[in-house]
């Protein structure tokens, strides 16, 4: 990739066979590209028959760093030696090759969100009454951290419980313009009535 290598010669003058710098650079490159773990200078020197000077190897490594300056990967020095890695900005693209399934919210989180969406503003007590179970603060924190619910006030009863409502961001994230675009409750009660009929 670079012609500079030819002009270098190993420090060790008494070496019987002078090391062909260009060729040795290829070997270094192949070794570094086929190994995920960093390779120390000592290990890289094992790739040559001739004993090599650290400086000679380091200069070739610096040349490789330059050779890859415009590429999608970069050669760098870490604690244990030298290694190639994909440039961090490539990750967002490379992730497309192995798309992971997105995680899902638990039923408790989804029901809490539904209650807040349809019955807002509601207190934790309201949610608990509707769900029939205790609502952990973790659930509310999850939804608040996501920016989907916030506290819009407190109810004027003993304990002054916080009133939760959904945010505009929740609408944006669900691709809704307003809460009215949520499936209407009438539709659902229709389903419920169907169930009742089926049950009777």
């Amino acid at each position, binding site marked *: 990739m670079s012609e500079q290598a030819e002009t270098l010669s190993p420090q060790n003058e008494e070496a019987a066979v002078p090391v062909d710098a260009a060729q040795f650079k290829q070997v270094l490159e192949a070794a570094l590209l*086929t190994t995920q773990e960093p390779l120390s200078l000592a290990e890289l020197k094992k790739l040559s028959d001739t004993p090599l000077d650290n400086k000679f190897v380091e200069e070739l490594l610096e040349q490789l760093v330059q050779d890859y300056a415009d590429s999608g990967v970069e050669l760098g020095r870490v604690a244990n030696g030298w290694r190639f890695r994909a440039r961090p900005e490539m990750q967002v693209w490379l992730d497309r090759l192995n798309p992971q399934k*997105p995680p899902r919210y638990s039923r408790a989180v989804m029901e809490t969100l539904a209650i807040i969406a349809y019955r807002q503003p509601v207190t934790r007590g309201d949610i608990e009454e509707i769900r*029939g179970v205790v609502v952990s603060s973790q659930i509310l924190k999850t939804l608040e951290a996501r920016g989907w619910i916030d506290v819009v006030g407190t*109810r*004027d009863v003993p304990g002054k419980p916080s009133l939760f409502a959904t945010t505009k961001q929740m609408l944006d994230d669900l691709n809704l313009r307003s809460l*009215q675009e949520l499936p*209407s409750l009438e539709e659902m009660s229709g*389903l419920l009535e169907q169930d009742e009929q089926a049950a009777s």
Partner: protein
Amino acid sequence: MTETAQPANPVAHIHGEPLLEMPQDLYIPPDALEVVLETFQGPLDLLLYLIRKHNLDVLDIPMAQLTQQYMSYIDMMQRHRLELAAEYLLMAAVLIEIKSRMLLPRPPKANEEEGGEDPRAELMRRLLEYEQMKLAAQKLNELPQAGRDFELVQVLIERTVVERLPNVAVEDLRQAWLAILARAKQNAHHKVRREELSVRERMTHILRTLRHGEFEAFENLFDANGGIPQLVVSFIAILELAKETLVEITQSETLGNIYVRASRNLVAAE
């Protein structure tokens, strides 16, 4: 694994000495014979070796000679009580059978189908096919193999762990709500009211507008561009908020301006 048995290659090495031919009377250490046996992949391989070694014509195999050569190897193996795969003995029987069929005069036209065929034809076909595959195996083995003759490139990719957030679709909300309704129905004492969602949304909107804690003109809480249904919804929302004591509504004089503000404690919570 051991090299293939080539005609020029020794059958085995004993104490470093190449053993080109099986000595007839000398004592052969069983180890050496095992090497011989392992060298061959089976009776076909051994036959091919004999054919090549004695320069026989595979298209016109002298059965007497080949059978004799083969039998002497088999005898030797058996004399040394080496475990001989059944295939070797079966092949011996096949060879003898072919040999005897060749000695018989061919029945004239008695058996049109088979009668004309050389009894060696099947053996010949099998030898040629096996040899072809044997050579193909050698060629395949000469091809560079990943991991053995070349390395694959694999550069590290450091994946900074980006927290992946669950996706929620409207349908998920619907399902969640349906689940709540279904449960509520089971516990009959819970009454889940059906209500206009737009009123609820408007209530939240008004509460947000009043967050500053100051009085807001009543008319400012209405969006004149929203049309009459919107005005009605806003009005119901304010009444609902007042009912739930979430807002205070004041009017200093009859027909004067009406002001609305969030309940004191509601603002304090901010």
